[in-house]
């Protein structure tokens, strides 16, 4: 009972957060498009390329990817193969699903941790981008944030499945 209430109250917040963050991620795709079009036009016709557009593209991509993965998971948008599982008995399906959520949780938890270590490393070494000299660590932090949010989404999905599965 408490589990269901907890999952429900917690899930609203996490899903809303993932939707907002996703909004930033997809908005940045438009920025990337405009940046590159401007770069091509300026370079071809005015011989004035935008300085560092190559590395800006890479940095923007960190935002695009890591800000959209959590929302995609919240929408169950990550592809999986369904042919076999749907033929198994209902109870077994729930057990398998719980197990798969646990595995996914493990993977993204580890990845969030690994990326944090990487962010600390990059920060300590004061790494910067080649041309513009921007510090790299904030963008690794974007990756940490995105995968941590994805981990949370998976956790919520696991908890609500447990709460529901208990009733079935």
């Amino acid at each position: 009972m408490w589990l269901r209430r907890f999952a429900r109250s917690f899930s609203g917040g996490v899903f809303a957060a993932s939707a907002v963050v996703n909004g930033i991620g997809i908005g940045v795709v438009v920025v990337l498009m405009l940046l590159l079009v401007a770069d091509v036009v300026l370079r071809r016709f005015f011989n004035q390329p935008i300085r560092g557009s190559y590395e800006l593209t890479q940095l923007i991509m960190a935002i695009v990817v890591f800000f959209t993965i959590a929302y995609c998971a919240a929408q169950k948008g990550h592809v999986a193969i369904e042919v076999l599982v749907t033929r198994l008995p209902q109870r077994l399906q729930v057990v398998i699903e719980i197990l798969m959520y646990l595995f996914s949780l493990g993977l993204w938890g580890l990845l969030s941790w690994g990326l944090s270590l990487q962010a600390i490393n990059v920060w300590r070494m004061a790494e910067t981008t080649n041309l513009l000299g921007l510090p790299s660590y904030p963008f690794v932090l974007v990756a940490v944030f995105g995968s941590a949010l994805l981990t949370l989404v998976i956790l919520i999905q696991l908890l609500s499945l447990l709460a529901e599965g208990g009733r079935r």
Partner: protein
Amino acid sequence: MSPVTMGIIGICILLVLLFLKMPIGFAMGLVGFVGYWWVRDMSPALSMISLVTYSEATAYMMSALPLFIFMGWLAAYGELSKDAFSALHRWVGHWRGGLSMSTVIACAAFGAVCGSSMATAVTMVPVALPEMRKYKYDDELSLGCIAAGGNLGFLIPPSLAFIIYAILTEESIGALFMAGILPGLLLTFLFSVTIYVLCRINPQLGPSGPRASWRERLVALKGMWGIIVLFILVMGGIYGGFFTPTEAAAVGAFGALVLGLVNRQLTWRRFITTLLETGKTTAMVFVLIIGAIIFSRFMTISTIPVNLARFIGALTIPDYAILAAILMLYVLVGFFMEIISVLVITIPIFYPVILAMGFDPVWFGVLAVLTMLMGSISPPVGIIVFALSGMVKEVPLFRIFKGAMPFLVAMFVCLIILVAFPQISLLLPHLMLPYR
């Protein structure tokens, strides 16, 4: 235990996880991590997965993906397919089965601005189906040709499948794009022949429509200019080395946005939907690729691909028999999985084998994509057919599968022609400036 044994156990566990419905990218990442840990150690495995994840997400080559996805959705919601269809309709609509041929050719034209087979097929339904129904076309033929035509979205550049193949193999995106053009046109032609033959055998399937005057035809061509200009801009830019595939994608997306606005089809609400779809597809594809690359790092240290290549190289079976076996396997796997998943799972293992046998990797990319596409319109897991049946609920699923069957034969014929004449795939890439 030898690394090869560990690798084989890893592959088996991966297959189990996949069939237990773990998201494909997650499963590959997890097995890749645990396998790496098993062969090496915990801490190198942890730093490998975090490095791969960050560096792949921010690799310049990968940035072409979200932009081409964006371009495709913009073209879809800007209804660029409508104009293409109505133009072609006036040119060949009066032939028997002419509307179906217009549909297939319009799919090819739309594929020239859209990189996904799903988007191509799905956008064609509201455009072409009502028209074909108006002229009493058989639903089986109508939906079959839309499903089959959708495949052209992946063969004719820009193509997400080719970008992903290029990323996984470190081949040139531009070369693969060029390689897809002639095979895509060949397949369009074969699909049209299929429709012609079907309607010859049974004229009830696709009666001839009204004949348009030459004046009407020329006027209708106006609807095509947008797509043509966009295609020439994007592909011409890559072909001539004017810009990188990423820049081409940005220019293409921008062009599709402008065309959609000129069309007055791209409302604010549709634009938001376009962005949401773009975000979802991007996230899905990146997770798949990142998972695949983590998995392939494990495969590399397990030495399976190298040993497999050496083993196959030492066999006395002719190379073409091995190629045939690999392609057969793709047909089979394609029956159960959609193409991007098949690509990310198998390319890390088979690519070294193809190189070892001395086959051209660009040519193989075209063959692999075409073979995997067969599964998307055939049972049991034909995702394009599933999507169509979700949109057209009154037609039973098996009838759409049945309608797509003759087109599968055409795809098979196309495959044989492409294997026999590698020049069809390789002519354009070899003419391209920065390549070779």
